[in-house]
């Protein structure tokens, strides 16, 4: 049955990564422009196709057809490598996110690892190399400043990002994302313990540390994906465009798309950890266990629910970007090291005390 496993994995990779996530990246660029337009009382791109829905296609063609210019003063091989290095890790992390329950008796996750969140953090921590390399290889001052900022920012916020989900892992006692989702489907989402065993004093008390860890997690996610209010690496008022100043055409587009891909995966992880992944609220259509048979149309609904939640989260990301002003760099570092690091640590201790007390 070896070929069967390989075939199933290949189909899942092609469909989930290339036919769903990549178009979702393009659509979120469109959504970003439309939402920002709505927030600023403008119209936004509405000419290409119905409601401007084909705008991503037009953008893509434009990026591919523009001149791919390599400046003379760059370090060539690293300059070419950098855009790929920002895009690849973002797409690799898709491997462990469960995007549905089951379809044809096949679990809807590419790799059912027992170290799910750790894998995501490990691979996501490699995205920093793309940015560092872009800044260094460009061999000019603004990109270099941008990449130095980005390195220190990403390292600082990786710590609070990692620490922020420790309480969640302590409560579920589990590192397998599929089983975490199943637990939430049956006993209430992490932030919404309204049914099953979650509807108890214990469930509600434990929702307090989970809420704190959600706040820390989401904020750190903004910093990790270099998005406003934390987009200091490419802050245009100070650094022209930061690390991708010297890039043009499709190489620039890869940086751009890598940022959105990271945002989508971040949303996927947040939805999986805190909002019950593919599950519907109140245990509707929830299978008995992970191995129980799931009817075909239930499976389809679960996949739809997952992507619905992810899209809502992306719109939240976009709305925040167009609402908050940019932080100053020292404020950003202070927030990371003095507030969030301590908050996440205290949260771990609080969770441990609560778990001991409630046992």
């Amino acid at each position: 049955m070896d070929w069967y496993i390989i075939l199933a994995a290949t189909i899942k990779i092609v469909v989930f990564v290339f036919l769903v996530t990549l178009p979702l990246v393009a659509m979120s660029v469109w959504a970003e422009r439309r939402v920002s337009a709505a927030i600023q009382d403008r119209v936004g791109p509405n000419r290409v196709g119905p409601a401007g829905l084909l705008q991503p296609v037009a953008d893509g063609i434009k990026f591919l057809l523009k001149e791919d210019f390599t400046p003379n003063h760059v370090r060539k091989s690293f300059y070419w490598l950098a855009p790929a290095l920002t895009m690849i890790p973002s797409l690799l992390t898709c491997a462990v996110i469960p995007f549905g329950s089951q379809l044809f008796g096949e679990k809807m996750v590419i790799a059912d690892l027992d170290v799910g969140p750790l894998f995501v953090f490990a691979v996501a921590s490699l995205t920093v190399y793309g940015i560092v390399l872009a800044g260094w290889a460009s061999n000019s001052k603004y990109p270099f400043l941008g990449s130095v900022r980005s390195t220190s920012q990403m390292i600082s916020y990786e710590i609070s990002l990692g620490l922020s989900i420790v309480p969640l892992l302590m409560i579920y006692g589990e590192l397998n994302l599929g089983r975490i989702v199943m637990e939430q489907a049956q006993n209430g989402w992490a932030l919404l313990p309204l049914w099953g065993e979650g509807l108890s004093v214990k469930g509600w008390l434990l929702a307090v540390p989970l809420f704190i860890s959600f706040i820390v997690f989401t904020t750190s996610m903004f910093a990790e994906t270099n998005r406003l209010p934390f987009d200091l690496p490419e802050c245009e008022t100070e650094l022209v465009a930061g690390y991708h100043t010297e890039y043009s055409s499709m190489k620039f587009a890869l940086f751009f798309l890598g940022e959105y891909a990271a945002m989508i995966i971040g949303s996927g992880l947040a939805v999986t950890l805190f909002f019950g992944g593919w599950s519907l609220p109140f245990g509707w259509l929830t299978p008995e266990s992970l191995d129980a048979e799931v009817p075909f149309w239930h499976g389809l609904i679960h996949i739809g629910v997952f992507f619905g939640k992810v899209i809502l989260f992306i719109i939240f990301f976009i709305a925040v970007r167009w609402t908050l002003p940019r932080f100053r760099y020292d404020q950003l570092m202070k927030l990371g090291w003095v507030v969030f690091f301590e908050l996440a640590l205290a949260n771990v201790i609080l969770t441990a005390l609560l778990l001991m007390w409630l046992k």
Partner: protein
Amino acid sequence: MTFLFFIFAALTLFGGIGVVVNRNPVTSAFSMILSFLGLAALFIQLNAYLVGVLQILVYAGAIMVLFLFIIMLLDIPKAENKRFPVFTLGASVVVVVSFVTLVIAVITKSGVGAAKLPAIEAQKGPGQSDVHQIGELLFSTYWFPVQIVAVLLLVATVGVVVLSKRELK
């Protein structure tokens, strides 16, 4: 899946050689990251998911970023073709010779392909991952060494702060 082993072993060795051979420190650092990635893949092939993932998370994802950061900030120039001091050359020859002797001794002693290492009994309960096992061992049997290592790291951190502060004055 033996061919995967060969691919990743080749990647690890290729990266390792790249660290030594390259004149440009940034290229060396990237070769080292490549080597770590190959090593992580080898661990994962041995079903040691946690070790493999930590290899990427800690070494490739954090420590090497700091290395690169320092290399880029200090702007270390390419190494020139200078002659090594006799002492350095002698020391490296001693290290290489003793390592090769060690490897040969181990291989001849065990006999290639003849002896099998004793199987390690898995202490897994049903549905327990290797993360559970490692965590339990670290916090029960090995809690004291873990604390010692933590204190050691703290000493190193304090030492760095003291040294760099002295230079400021």
